[in-house]
Structures are given as C-alpha cells and as structure tokens.
C-alpha cells in the first residue's frame, strides 16, 4: 500500500510549518503581550492547516474552532483585562537557560525522529485493510463486517493513492470510534469540562463581602452611639 505525497501537498506542508514556527517565534520573543496574543492565533491557524495537510480534517476544524476561535479570544481578553501588561513582558534572567533547554529538547527529539526506523504504511499487506484505508470505508450494522466502497477508477492497474479511504472520510470513522472504543473517556471529558467551569467560576467570582467588611461596621455604630 503506497500512500504517496504529491508535490503540492509538500509545498502546503512547508508553508504551513513556516507559518506555525514563524508566529510561534514571535510569541516567545515579542515584548508586547497583545502582539504575542495575535501571533499566537496565527500560529494556531498554521497548526490547523497542518492538520488538513496531514488529512486529519476533523482535528483541523476542531483546532480552528477551539484554538483560533476560543483560546485566542480568551488570551486577548486576558491581556486587555490586565492593565499593566501594556508595559510588556520583560524577559527573565532565564533566557540563556531557556535557550539551552529548548536546543537540548529539539536536538533530542530531532535525533530520535531521524534515527528511528519508523514502520510505514507499506507494511500493511492485508488486502481488506489496504482497501479500507485507501479506497473507501463504510461501516454497516452492529457486527464487525466492513464494507469497502471502491473509488479507484475501473481498469487502472496502478493507482497512486494520496488521501483516500479512512484518511479522507476520517470524520465518520472518528465519530464511531468516539462513541464505541472511547465512550468512557468521552464521558469523563464532559465531567472535566463541568469541573473546569465550576472551578473557573469559583476563582473568578468577587471576593465574599464577609468578615473583612462586616466586622468594622458594628464598631463604627458603637463609636457613633458613644459620640
């Protein structure tokens, strides 16, 4: 099973990567925090494009909705709420340490990436698996039977498949996966969201007007009565 990558996809991949890393570099170096927040949105958008290039359409849409749409707005709000942030985020003394840590992490990860013998899709030999991954995949019924819908042109002996099968129709297979194999995790994420919501509200509400302000009042009244 050969999953070939076209030149156009490669160009799109490098463009999205350059966008992501360029904006990320602005985020970690820009002194103006508001500009950093805007650059962060650009970086998230680049990552979203990267997911589309990697044929993970649903993840790309989620990335754009959640990160570009929600988290970036949250960041911008945070920057605007906190007034003295306008003075800029000064770099701490940890700059050299930070650079050293980053270079070490990057070197280790890059070394691992290039020195590992990754298994490839070519190693899948089962014809049903190849067909389901490349030609189209339709699920039927409760049983484990799978239906493969062939989209390859009739009569062509050698079809170069770039994105097809599960990796084109990933959304439906992903949805089925989420409510079957990952049902429990899916439910627990909902619980986590509720906990986050309540925790955020608890932290953000006004400090209780209890003890600190109530106690002086009787004293003032007593003082007033005595005068």
């Amino acid at each position, binding site marked *: 099973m050969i999953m070939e990558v076209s030149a156009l996809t490669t160009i799109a991949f490098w463009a999205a990567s350059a966008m992501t890393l360029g904006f*990320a570099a602005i985020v970690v170096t820009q002194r103006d925090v508001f500009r950093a927040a805007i650059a962060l949105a650009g970086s998230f958008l680049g990552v979203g494009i990267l997911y589309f290039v990697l044929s993970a359409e649903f993840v790309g849409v989620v990335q754009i909705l959640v990160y570009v749409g929600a988290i970036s707005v949250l960041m911008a709000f945070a920057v605007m709420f906190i007034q003295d942030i306008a003075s800029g985020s000064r770099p701490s003394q940890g700059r050299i340490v*930070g650079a050293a840590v980053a270079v070490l992490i990057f070197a280790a990860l890059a070394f691992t990436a290039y020195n590992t013998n990754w298994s490839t899709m070519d190693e899948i030999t089962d014809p049903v698996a190849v067909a389901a991954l490349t030609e189209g995949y339709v699920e039927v019924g409760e049983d484990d039977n799978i239906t493969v819908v062939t989209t390859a042109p009739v009569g062509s002996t050698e079809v170069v498949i770039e994105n097809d099968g599960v990796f084109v129709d990933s959304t439906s297979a992903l949805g089925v996966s989420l409510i*079957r194999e990952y049902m429990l995790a899916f439910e627990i994420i909902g619980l986590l969201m509720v906990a986050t919501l309540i925790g955020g509200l608890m*932290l953000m509400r006004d400090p209780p007007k209890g003890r600190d302000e109530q106690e002086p009042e009787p004293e003032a009244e007593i003082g007033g009565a005595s005068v």
Partner: protein
Amino acid sequence: MTIENVLLVSAALFALGAYGVVSRRSLITVIMSLELMFNGVVIAAVAFSRFTPAAALMSGDPVTAEAIRSALTGHVFAIFVTAVAAGEAALAFALVFAMYRAAESVEITDAAEMKN
C-alpha cells in the same frame, strides 16, 4: 513530507514553547507558550496516525472494523488533548486573574509567596 519532517516541525514547536515557558516572566506569555507545547505534541500524534500503520492491521488476524478505526487513534488523542488544553487554559486564566487581584501583578517572580 515524510514522518521525519513532520516530527521535526513538532519538535521545533515544542522546543519554542519550552523556551518561552522558561524565559518569559509574564504568566500570560508562559501560558501562551504552554499552548504552543500542547500543539507540538498533537502534531506528532496526528503524524503517527497518518504515516505509521496501526498494530491491529499488521497482526495477521482477520481485519475488523475496530481494527480499521484504530488507524485513527492519533486523531482521537488529538481531540482529547485539545479538550483538556482548552479547559486548562480557561482555568489558568482564572488563576491569573485571581493572582492579579491579590498581588496586582502577573509576573512569575511575584508569585513566590502563597499567603492567604
């Protein structure tokens, strides 16, 4: 575009985020850098899903629908990480606001004390 290239981009994003976390002083930019690191990890997960075969498809057993779906485990991982990161960001900002209200500052060096 090979898996090595994608992992390189993922590693670069993670390293940039790590640099930001260590070198920035404002809590808000530290959280931004944390989000960059999350994104680097998720890119790697999606890349593995795209370029490496699922173990269930290579075992030699008859291929089931579940085995086919296991090719998308990286995508599922990405969605869960995104959900957790979104919750984490919301809570982190609530904490930053609480600290700003208490200490009139959002710099890490001012967060050394945890009184009250």
